[in-house]
């Protein structure tokens, strides 16, 4: 008896005792309900909006095609204000009250753990689509058999980043490195992993001479910038993102920082970030968060065009993650012929589909079965240019390499 059956059984007993139906009345008809806890207000409202926009596009098309045997998909989107207890409350509400078939989680960092605990207890199928915290799906103490990860996985990016950076370092003789990353779990994990792998790939030449840890949403980076200029590193790595990254680049520009230092920033190549910059400096190294030219395929370009047409704005990294998530979910439901969580989960495990972001065979991505994590999505780095397409000379990461180091990383942490 698996957990879900157990829960269903317990619920049936509960129904018998209390005289009213509890959570398990699987609705075989009527719309399929997806509950989306996400951030729609405050300073990261962009996250929720660009995520749900992408989901809406896919679902609209699905419903227009008749849905799942005539059952349309209904999206319940609710704001959690980026608070973990609100995320938990909203998710409980989805599970208990709205009796959603799937929790489609578009929550960031700590709130995702709160969502995770609710669905773990309830046994509802859950997709994590934007939280990049590695442990969410890698750590066996935290991951849950009914949860699937469609968001970027930190270790994947780190391998791609370190390989690219090690190459440039060798080519240009970059030995002294510094970092400037936001002082919270994502920023720290990302940066630590990057340097760990960079040391591995780049050899003994690489020396880290200092780390700057500004706070998340810090308005002013002057003290970090002066510190960097002070120590004169050859290169700087940064996991800043969004408005913080924009502030940093604007402020560093005043010091002429990018003339003398090679800057590697994993989160720059996302349209909303690049377009917010008054002057996008040329020749910065950036990871490709989301751009329509990588992978350079028709599906990707037309997604960008369609999105812009409908929402008057470019999609974000969060958009593609959610798009892939919802496409997989709908495909799995179609394959299983039902919205039942356990059966859909079975269909999801190991599923491979073509995607706008796919770099696997035939531009596919795969939902890896063993840890329920997405692989073969586009991980690449390139250099910035002032005009479209903003990033050129993109080098794609090798997924065999990524998976090899991911495994080593998991072993080291005792995850496997």
């Amino acid at each position, binding site marked *: 008896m698996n957990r879900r059956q157990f829960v269903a059984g317990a619920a049936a007993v509960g129904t018998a005792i209390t005289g009213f139906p509890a959570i398990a009345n699987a609705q075989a008809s009527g719309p399929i309900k997806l509950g989306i806890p996400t951030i729609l*207000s*405050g*300073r990261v*409202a*962009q996250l929720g*909006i660009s995520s749900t926009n992408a989901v809406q596009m896919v679902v609209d098309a699905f419903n227009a095609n008749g849905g799942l045997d005539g059952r349309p998909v209904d999206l319940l989107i609710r704001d959690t204000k980026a608070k973990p207890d609100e995320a938990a409350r909203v998710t409980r509400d989805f599970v208990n009250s709205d009796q959603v078939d799937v929790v489609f989680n578009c929550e960031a960092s700590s709130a995702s753990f709160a969502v995770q605990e609710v669905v773990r207890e309830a046994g509802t199928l859950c997709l994590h689509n934007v939280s990049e915290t590695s442990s969410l799906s890698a750590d066996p103490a935290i991951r849950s058999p009914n949860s699937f990860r469609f968001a970027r996985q930190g270790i994947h990016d780190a391998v791609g980043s370190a390989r690219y950076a090690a190459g440039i370092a060798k080519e240009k003789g970059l030995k002294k490195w510094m970092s400037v990353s936001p*002082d919270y779990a994502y920023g720290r994990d990302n940066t630590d992993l990057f340097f760990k792998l960079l040391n591995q790939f780049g050899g003994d030449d690489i020396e880290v001479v200092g*780390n*700057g*840890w500004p*706070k998340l*949403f*810090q*308005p*002013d980076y*002057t*003290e*970090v*910038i*002066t*510190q960097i*200029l*002070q120590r004169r590193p050859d290169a700087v790595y940064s996991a800043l993102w*969004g*408005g*913080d990254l*924009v*502030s940093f680049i*604007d*402020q560093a520009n*005043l*010091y*002429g920082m990018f003339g003398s230092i090679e800057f590697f920033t994993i989160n720059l190549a996302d349209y*909303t970030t690049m377009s*917010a*910059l*008054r*002057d996008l400096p040329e020749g910065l190294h950036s990871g490709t968060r989301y751009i329509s030219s990588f992978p350079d395929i028709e599906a990707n370009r037309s997604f960008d065009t369609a999105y812009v047409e409908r929402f008057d*704005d470019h999609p974000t990294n969060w958009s593609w993650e959610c798009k892939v998530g919802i496409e997989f979910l709908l495909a799995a439901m179609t394959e299983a012929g039902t919205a039942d969580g356990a059966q859909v989960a079975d269909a999801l495990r190991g599923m491979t589909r073509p995607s706008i972001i796919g770099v696997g065979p035939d531009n596919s991505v795969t939902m890896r079965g063993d840890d329920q994590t997405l692989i073969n999505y586009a991980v690449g780095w390139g250099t910035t240019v002032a005009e479209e397409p903003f990033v050129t000379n993109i080098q794609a990461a090798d997924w065999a390499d990524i998976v090899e180091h991911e495994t080593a990383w998991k072993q080291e942490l005792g995850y496997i």
Partner: protein
Amino acid sequence: MELAAFGECLTNSSCLIFQTVGGLKIGMLLFLVASGLTLIFGVLGVINFAHGSFYMLGAYFAYTTLAVTDSFTLAVIAGALGAGVVGILFERGFISRVYQSNVLVQLLVCYAFILILDDLVILIWGEEFLSSLGAPEVFRVPPLFVAGAVVPPFHLFLIGASIAVALGLWLIMARTRFGKIVRAAAQNPQMVSALGINTTLIYAGVFALGSLLAGLGGALAASERSISSGMGFSIVIESFIVTVIGGMGSIAGAFVAAILIGLARSFGAIGFPLFTDGLMFMVMCLVLILRPQGLFGRAES
């Protein structure tokens, strides 16, 4: 703790100049905002928790003005004046109704205003963060090199402009009739009222001036900081720290405390990078325990 690096920096002229100029710039922008907060508290006795929202409004007004007129000067003026006008509306429409209420009600009215303005800003300007204004054309030049340190001319301008504002504020307070009345009102409102001076006007004027200073700070800061809803959050907390350390109601105190905080940030980033925030709250605690009137405040009788 990286005390070695800290000591090394103190003995190295380029590092000293680097961190001092950087710290001064952070401190002076903070002073602009904090001086408004401390002025309002000194005269009205109100803790304007919504002060950060005027900083935010200053930034947004400046952004739009720059987009329309393409003039940095006009943008900064519009940011400051716009925040000042909203300040008057806020004082007349809301805050003036709770002067007699307890501090809790005043606080909640301010908090309500924060919530409303943060959402209004999203409604008007959208949920995406906006780019900074960028330095005006004159300052888009290569930075200066002083004793091995890099100094952007624009930062010198920001520091100079803030000091000019501080001087102007001091002149207004020390030399003008308005300043005298304001100081008198801070000490004894009944007396001022008994002398036939319109305290309503004085209160509105002070609130407008306070908000204007926050708006000016926001507009100037927006020249190099990205703009978003909720950006007033962190600045208002820092302003409170400055106000408490300098002495609530003391503009001179705010000036000194803002510089201290600025320098603590820039040098703290070298000496103890992970605990600058916690350190600031600890200093605030110490001041509150040992000298609640702050460095420059008058002791309570």
